């Protein structure tokens, strides 16, 4: 158990401070090696869910095969749901490390750890490539397009399949490189106390880390460069997923704001997920002394801004289509927003915007540890609705090679296998995350220790205040 800095300096009770650096490392590592009983229960439940997901997937493949993409709409929706959360999550660590925000320290590793789910993303992506229609129309009927609308235009070699795959695999590799580089100092520290296989594993992952000045400089520069590259690569891959598996499958849908909207939803949902994990760790994981209210309060403002941005982008899309009065655009609005998927859109807007907006609007609520996580729960439901609306809609929007959406197609509702896949793969993602948390310390030990170095209490005017250093 880490000895809290409160014991040594007169901090006010309502002020959260970083724990003492001398004991933080040992405490955090020991928690990783010997988890609490709740962890095992969560692992069993999510493991069962994953099995159900696999059953659903096998049943779907056995009944419908991979020739037609329409039956795979819900599978695509759950893939996109997981991909947008896990793909953007490492950026939370990267972004707030770049802005040198102290409050980020407890949530850095939580966000980087989502990179391990890149493996799940890659595995789930393979069947989607199998159902993706080719660029060239194999059988032109009537006035259909010979080559469908696609971001690959004329089609460079291997497009769309190999390039799409390369994007998802590249992102997974980059994400894990960030996690590995960031965790290296902690793993080197953990190696000293671990035994058996774990010691060997930590030794392998930590490499020759001794904590020399040169190594620290390389690590920080490497994290900055990898982070910048990851950010750009993420935008590109999200652009691929949103356009290739959403827009391109809907005849006549040409919408330049959709990839940015997809990215905003992914930023919003990934931050929401991280805050939820942070809250769970604080409330039930025994990390209360490491996770104060400050990360929730600060991140809630960002979450609020992202919620507003989501609505702004959606509005910009809606108003341009609505005002244009073109038949194709009116049909797309009816399909995705008002008629076929009207109810899903309603859930999406209420949960992704209205509810979090009214929760996060109030500073007293934002200042509570439960405020932002409560909004996060709604956001995650809204994000799932967003993905169902877009991708189930796109996979069931008729013939991809048609010029435009001449009629409004009916909605596609889920069957049992779809429900198995949606619930199962979400559970599977949690299962993998929990396993990864057994290997890597869930809190970034070196960042917590660094934070402890950069703080002190000082008398100022009539009060005593926390002082936080911001090194260049």
């Amino acid at each position, binding site marked *: 158990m880490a000895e809290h800095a409160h014991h040594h300096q007169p901090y006010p009770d309502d002020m959260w401070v970083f724990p003492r650096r001398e004991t933080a490392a040992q405490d955090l590592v020991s928690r990783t090696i010997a988890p609490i009983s709740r962890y095992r229960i969560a692992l069993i439940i999510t493991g069962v869910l994953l099995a159900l997901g696999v059953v659903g997937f096998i049943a779907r493949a056995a009944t419908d095969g991979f020739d037609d993409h329409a039956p795979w709409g819900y599978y695509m929706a759950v893939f996109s749901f997981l991909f947008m959360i896990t793909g953007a999550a490492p950026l939370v660590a990267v972004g707030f490390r770049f802005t040198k925000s102290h409050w980020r320290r407890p949530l850095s590793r939580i966000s980087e750890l989502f990179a391990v789910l890149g493996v799940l993303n890659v595995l789930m992506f393979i069947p989607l490539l199998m159902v993706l229609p080719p660029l060239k129309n194999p059988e032109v009927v009537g006035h259909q397009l010979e080559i469908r609308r*696609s971001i690959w235009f004329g089609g460079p070699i291997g497009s769309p399949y190999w390039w799409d795959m390369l994007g998802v695999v590249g992102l997974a590799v980059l994400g894990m490189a960030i996690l590995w580089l960031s965790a290296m100092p902690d793993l080197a520290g953990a190696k000293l106390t671990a035994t058996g296989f774990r010691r060997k594993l930590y030794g392998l992952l930590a490499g020759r880390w001794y904590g020399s000045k040169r190594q620290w400089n390389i690590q920080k520069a490497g994290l900055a460069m990898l982070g910048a590259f990851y950010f750009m690569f993420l935008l590109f891959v999200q652009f691929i997923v949103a356009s290739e598996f959403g827009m391109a499958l809907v005849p006549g849908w040409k919408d330049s704001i959709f990839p940015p909207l997809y990215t905003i939803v992914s930023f919003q949902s990934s931050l929401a997920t991280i805050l939820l994990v942070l809250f769970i760790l604080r409330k039930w994981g025994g990390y209360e002394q490491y996770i104060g209210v400050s990360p929730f309060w600060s991140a809630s403002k960002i979450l609020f801004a992202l919620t507003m941005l989501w609505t702004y982008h959606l509005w910009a899309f809606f108003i*341009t289509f609505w005002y244009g009065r073109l038949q194709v655009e009116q049909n797309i609005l009816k399909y995705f927003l008002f008629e076929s998927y009207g109810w899903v859109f309603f859930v999406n807007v209420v949960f992704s915007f209205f509810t979090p907006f009214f929760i996060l609007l109030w500073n007293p609520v934002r200042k509570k540890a439960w405020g932002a996580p409560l909004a996060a729960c709604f956001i995650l439901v809204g994000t799932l609705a967003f993905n169902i609306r877009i991708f189930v809609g796109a996979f069931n929007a008729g013939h991809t090679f048609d010029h435009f959406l001449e009629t409004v197609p009916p909605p596609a509702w889920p069957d049992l296998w779809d429900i198995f896949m949606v619930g199962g793969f979400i559970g599977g993602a949690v299962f993998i995350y929990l396993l990864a948390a057994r290997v890597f310390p869930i809190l970034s030990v070196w960042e917590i220790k660094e934070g402890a170095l950069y703080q002190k209490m000082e008398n100022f005017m009539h009060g005593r205040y926390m002082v936080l*250093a911001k090194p*260049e």
Partner: protein
Amino acid sequence: MQEGRALTPTQINRDLLRPILEQPKWFWPAVFVLSLIVLVGVSVAGYMINRGLGVTGLNRPVAWAFMITNFVFWIGISHAGVMLSAILRLAKAEWRRPATRAAEVLTIFALSTALTMPIMHTGRPWRAIYWLFPYDFARGVWPSVRSPLVWDPSAIMTYLTSSTLFVLIALVPDIAVLRDHTTGVAHRIYSLLSLGWQGNARQWKFQVVAGVLLSALILPVFVSVHSIVSWDFGMSVTVKAWHSTTFAPYFVIGAVHSGVSAVVFVMIILRQIYGWQDYIRKEHIDALGRLLIVVATAWFYFLCMEIIFGIYGREADELAMREMQFLQYPWNVLMIIFAGITYFLPVALWLPRTFRRNLWIMSFACISVNVGMWLERYLIIVPGLARKQVFTFTWQTYMPSWVELTLVLSTFGLVSLLLLLFSRVFPLIPLYDIKEGEFLRTSVQVGRRTVPATIRED
């Protein structure tokens, strides 16, 4: 983020009030030159109104060109104020302090200047009122409230009002300092403007709360202004390359890009002419440079989306327009110059820390961005209109006349003149904000190193 020496409140008052209390020698010659530029602009505007829009290069179908480009450009510059002041204030970024006032004031003057452009562009400015207000009840003639051309002035006037209020509230404590440092008529005027400010705890509380509230309230207005300007174009389905869903965020982020660059340039000028090296420090320019890398990259992303999805539809008329934009002279050359000087060149210059701290390089990069952003608006407006019609025999090109060139150049003179006059009457760096920063400034000892730190108020 704390370079330079520690400053006392007396020293801050003395340094930042010097341009107001002691008249610089170059002040009146500079005012004279800038006034002359504005006078030429006003005369040319008068000439154009007298002779009609035929003296410009406008034609059918290119009915919007230089003046509307300039309108969008100045609206864009006005976005710096809120970006630097409201957002950074809410984010509690320490390095915002010397930049906020200049950004806010630039917002007001840029907005006012922008407004003159569409009014002049009507050709008969007095008739502009018909588009905004109902004027013939008997015949049931109403302005179309569903038109972005009506939303535009509403949004701009709301933004102008709120920005002015924002500046005034932030100015009150500084005006009170001026009141205490002046005599005679000046003292009486400043007394009136300081609204009885005495700097007691209650007044400070109100001032801070008002500042935070206005910061939050002005944000939606800030976003709406350039979004609506973008919808002037985006709502049109007949002009190819305009009917794009991404226009609103693309315009807003572009506005922030050009606006923040303009503020950096203004700050560098202020630092040099008033000798404010202790206040506008290289670390501030460095921080703004880093912010600009992020903003520029976000803008570039939206630019890519706009272009990719322009071609994505593979519609013949849009492809013809894009072909003209990218492959035909002089548009192709202009496109290359635009992309180069708006993104690739400045971002390459902002990446190395040493360059971000070199004021010459930063000035060059910021001017480059603004020339590029002006060109961007031109390249959106003119090529689209030139190919607006379905029939090729009605396709037209456009060349600006000397009238439009003079009008555009004179707007730069107008904004510079207004800034100069403002700096003679009110401090362009907020005194109280700098003093607060100095009070909160401290350091933390980490091993053998002393690391700059800030007292956290919450």
